[in-house]
């Protein structure tokens, strides 16, 4: 493992549970990580339970919340993801496993695929192609822009701001179409391989038109008191165990793009975006400014991605080994730890950002009022599809 080393004790920032292990920013340990704890119920005269989900209009995916309240305030909450998928990748070649990995969570498909491929390349000790690494950054940043637009659209929709909601949906669709033009598939399926990215980046500069329009909507939202009031002081979370935009909204400089040299982010002028508010508004700000930062990196990449049709040959030095890689998905750290033998996957463990973010959400939601719940929920950008996965 060239990106990580085994350690007896955790060092640095704790990221979360990966299979039976605990992942930190530079080491992996056999320590047990903290689990989602089911909090003891609050019971006194006048309290009652309220069930939200598993299938409801406001929820995009299937999850059930058991909420204890005495009228308006959320006193206690438990979450139960309702769609648990068993996905078997062991015994498969990396190519066959990849078909399943890229379908764990379509909105974060690139983050999953690239983290998995980087781990496989690590395990097989493959020399990486620099142009491929640049292309992978381009795809990750496109995915980030699409996802952040979607999260902000969900926030404006929750606030019943129809004009910005539909403008944002328009921009999401335009981003999907641009991705479709570049890669032939709107969610990057069938695009990534070892040392190969099956996309043509000639039209990548068109992302500027989308981000230019977004900036106008973003500026408008920053002056909309009725929108901001729903987000400020809602779901405050200052937690060293948080990741992604939730951590950066609390002023914590947690970002895999900054911490690791797996992908050459530093060479394309990556700048971390942070806020101080630590609430849903802070998370909204981080996502908004990250869209702008990502577009700057993409424009930088249009100049340095030279080869649009490459398929680099690769040579695997090992056909047995273990690899671990982490990338910064739109909602935070995403990592794969894989073992291979005779070119086949013998074990694969996933650390999904939504799993960590669900824990953070549960901490932040207690004490808020029920009408604020949806804003807080959407601000974390959680996908149940990647939480409810048992990789076998």
């Amino acid at each position, binding site marked *: 493992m060239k990106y990580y080393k085994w350690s007896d004790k955790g060092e640095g920032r704790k990221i979360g549970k990966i299979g039976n292990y605990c992942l930190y920013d530079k080491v992996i340990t056999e320590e047990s990580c903290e689990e989602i704890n089911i909090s003891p119920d609050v019971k006194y005269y006048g309290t009652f339970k309220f069930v939200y989900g598993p299938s409801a209009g406001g929820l995009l995916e299937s999850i059930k919340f058991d909420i204890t309240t005495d009228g308006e305030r959320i006193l206690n909450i438990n979450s139960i993801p*309702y769609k648990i*998928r068993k*996905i078997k990748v062991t015994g498969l070649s990396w190519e066959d496993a990849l078909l399943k990995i890229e379908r764990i969570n*379509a909105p974060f498909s690139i983050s999953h695929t690239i983290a998995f491929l980087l781990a496989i390349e690590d395990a097989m000790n493959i020399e990486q192609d620099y142009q491929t690494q640049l292309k992978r950054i381009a795809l990750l940043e496109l995915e980030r822009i699409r996802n952040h637009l979607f999260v902000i659209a969900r926030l404006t929709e929750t606030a019943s701001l129809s004009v910005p909601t*539909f*403008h944002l949906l328009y921009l999401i669709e335009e981003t*999907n179409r641009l991705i*479709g033009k570049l890669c032939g598939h709107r969610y990057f399926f*069938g695009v990534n391989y070892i040392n190969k990215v099956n996309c043509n980046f000639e039209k990548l500069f068109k992302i500027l038109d989308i981000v230019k329009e977004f900036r106008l909507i973003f500026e408008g939202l920053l002056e909309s008191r009725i929108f901001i009031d729903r987000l400020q002081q809602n779901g405050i979370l200052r937690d060293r165990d948080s990741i992604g935009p939730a951590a950066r909204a609390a002023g914590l400089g947690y970002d895999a793009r900054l911490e690791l040299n797996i992908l050459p982010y530093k060479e394309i002028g990556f700048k971390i975006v942070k806020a101080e508010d630590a609430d849903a508004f802070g998370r909204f700000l981080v996502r908004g400014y990250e869209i702008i930062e990502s577009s700057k990196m993409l424009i930088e990449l249009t100049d340095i991605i030279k080869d649009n049709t490459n398929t680099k040959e690769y040579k695997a030095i090992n056909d047995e080994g273990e690899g671990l890689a982490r990338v910064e998905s739109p909602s935070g750290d995403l990592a794969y730890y894989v073992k291979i033998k005779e070119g086949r996957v013998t074990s694969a463990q996933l650390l999904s950002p939504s799993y960590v973010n669900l824990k953070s959400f549960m901490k932040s939601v207690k004490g808020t009022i029920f009408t604020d719940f949806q804003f807080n929920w959407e601000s974390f950008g959680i996908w149940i*599809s990647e939480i409810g996965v048992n990789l076998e």
Partner: protein
Amino acid sequence: MKNWWFLRGVRKGILTEKTPKDIAEWSTKIEGKGVVNCPTKAIENGKWIAERCIFCRRCYPNYKPNLNYEISIIKGTQKLFKKSFFLYPIDAGSCGGCNMELKLISSPQYDMTRFGIFFTNTPRHADAIIVMGTLTEKMKEVIKEAYNAMPEPKLVVLLGTCAISGGILGEAIPLEAQVLIPGCPPNPYTILDALIKVKGGKK
């Protein structure tokens, strides 16, 4: 001026499209010749079976997409829903792709409401239930309850290859469906086309 959303909306003009454009090729009909090793057996005896295809490109270059997005299978129409067609989406175990694409048929480019198609937050107000993803254990009862809560007449729409045939990840949804919308995930044009057809409407 920044917060005069209404004026901003008017200034933007009409964004809704009369004819489809910029369709991602790997969500459309696949044609070709030859024997290929398809992981979901979507190509058998040289014939492409849309319900099984996950658009993984393993068959390329023997088989190629032809940009025809009208790949849905309509087994029955219900003209009663011609002017107003309310849909209740339910996620049985999807990867999130179908959820996103279904949401996007409400974007200005497609504007499903011009065809009298709407989402509803409860199965009690729904004309059709749209099921996405593979079947997962806990969702079996939820799907059954939602289906039983719908008033008659009602339709079942299976959205995406996972729901129709299980795709590469699991089990199909065991409901008798009137509409099958293949794709991994289906293109919004394919979804909209199928929904218009099933209610007997015109594009």
